[in-house]
């Protein structure tokens, strides 16, 4: 079976990015999964065990002394080294901030072809076919690369699958860093770990708030309803721009795309750019005090009413049920 590379991103403190699971699962569908890492220190035994558990048959662990202070290029150097060593049939990379840049550079360096923002991957008659969700989920497009190494960026949260555990055979390498002029990472500020709440990408319930919440204090109403439902918290761009919540909660055209079982929109008008990130949800519920709000055009249940009245009542009723 052909080797399939999966770029495993690690935080500067050594934690596995959540994308690793889906990438290795898809790699196992297509061939023999080879996890690729780029770190300053040797991989710890815990990380090696985790990667084996997630399905890595081999781990191509590249070490660069400057991996924590150099932006992106260590990932590209590790991948290019692994392409040379394993002659893969495809390279899988998360469509994350770092992953997209690494994929683009790798394609130029190796003469590969790119398949971007992919939501699913399958084998069809010996060739790899990718599925893309385009223009806010209005279209599904199948694509492929021919005559070049396919380099695929996978949308976060799109694959909810885990591979079977594999050997996780460790291959430690120290490739020479490329001579490209580098960008320097001066310091990190991590997002606080919110262990109790699910990640927005891939969550089965999402509760989002918009400008209608009116203030950062009031936005906690959105969080309370999310917690009552065990869901993730999202927001419109207007709510992010107003500073009610951090930007990584933005759902929409230029934010996160979600496809949960349940999406609840609170005080969100439903602009086309917001809908582009959530209209593939199974069930959509909206509360808005404007009966003409466009969000009602796509809501399975629309309630014309005030979020400040309704949301506390809903939370009470949910509590009473348990």
């Amino acid at each position, binding site marked *: 079976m052909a080797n399939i590379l999966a770029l495993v991103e690690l935080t500067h403190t050594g934690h596995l990015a959540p994308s690793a699971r889906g990438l290795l699962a898809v790699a196992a569908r297509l061939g023999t999964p080879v996890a690729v890492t780029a770190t300053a220190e040797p991989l710890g035994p815990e990380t090696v065990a985790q990667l084996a558990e997630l399905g890595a048959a081999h781990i191509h662990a590249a070490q660069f002394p400057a991996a924590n202070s150099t932006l992106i290029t260590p990932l590209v150097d590790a991948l290019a080294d692994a392409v040379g060593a394993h002659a893969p049939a495809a390279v899988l990379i998360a469509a994350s*901030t770092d992953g997209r840049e690494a994929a683009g550079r790798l394609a130029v360096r190796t003469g590969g072809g790119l398949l971007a923002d992919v939501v699913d991957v399958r084998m069809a008659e010996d060739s790899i076919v990718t599925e893309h969700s385009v223009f806010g989920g209005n279209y599904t497009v199948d694509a492929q690369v021919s005559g070049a190494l396919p380099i695929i960026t996978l949308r976060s949260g799109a694959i909810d699958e885990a591979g079977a555990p594999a050997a996780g055979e460790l291959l430690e390498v120290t490739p020479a860093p490329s001579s490209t002029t580098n960008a320097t990472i001066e310091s990190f500020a991590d*997002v606080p770990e919110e262990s109790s709440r699910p990640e927005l990408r891939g969550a089965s319930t999402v509760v989002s708030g918009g400008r209608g919440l009116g203030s950062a204090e009031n936005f906690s109403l959105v969080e309370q309803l999310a917690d009552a439902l065990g869901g993730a918290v999202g927001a419109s761009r207007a709510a992010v721009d107003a500073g009610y919540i951090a930007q990584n909660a933005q759902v929409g055209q230029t934010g996160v795309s979600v496809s949960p079982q349940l999406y609840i929109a609170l005080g969100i008008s439903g602009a086309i750019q917001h809908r582009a990130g959530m209209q593939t949800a199974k069930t959509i519920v909206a509360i808005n005090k404007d009966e003409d709000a466009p969000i009602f055009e796509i809501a399975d*249940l629309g309630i014309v009413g005030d979020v400040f009245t309704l949301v506390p009542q809903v939370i009470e009723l949910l509590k009473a*049920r348990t």
Partner: protein
Amino acid sequence: MKIVVLIKQVPDTAEERILDPATGRLDREASDAVIDEITERALELALSVKDGDKSTEVVVATMGPKEALKSIRKALSMGADSGIHVLDDGLAGADLVVTASVLAAALRDTGADLFIAGNESTDGRAGMLPAMIAEHLGLPLLGSLVAADISAQSVSGQRATEAGTQDVSAAYPAIVTVTERFAEARFPNFKGILGAKRKPVSTLSAAELGDTGQISSSVLEVSQRPPRTAGAKITDDGNAAAQLVDFLASRRLI
């Protein structure tokens, strides 16, 4: 300082965007073309540097069909000094690999200290072109910035990733990409609109740019999702909270 801004013309996100089912390409007749909002913010960043130091030269560059000249003219009316338009019918349907090598070839000899692009385009959402151009030109890239400090010696900024933010920096020449957290673009004023007509735009064809590689990715199939329809709409008369909870229960969502 010389700054080149990579602007892109895209279908307006405020309207329905149509794909041709046969080719998987955008139906350009179906929607209005505008400058991608993020690249307008990229231009705003460059113009704000020029506001502070009049000797700054701002060039806008784009690869796109004939209509893209409209976007270049708009950028010139906002305050850019000149434009580069890569225009070639042979480039219709170019994939990321070809687009990146064409743009890199067009930008290689501009002598720019700084290139500013958007972090992703609203039509493609690949978020890869600037990194590809950086690799072609051997430049450092500060991608997905939420804040930038462009000084005479170097560029630094804050970069937003899934895991948090990073303070990053690079020496010139460099590429940075901005996110929509940057300031909205200014409007062209009357003087700007008049002046734009006299500003130079150089048009480059693919042939002038040498070998720019082969298209390797292709669309196999396009299918359209049936539009979503509205469900029940109720007005809160004191009972809506209970109805909402019953609705969730009936769909086994709680």
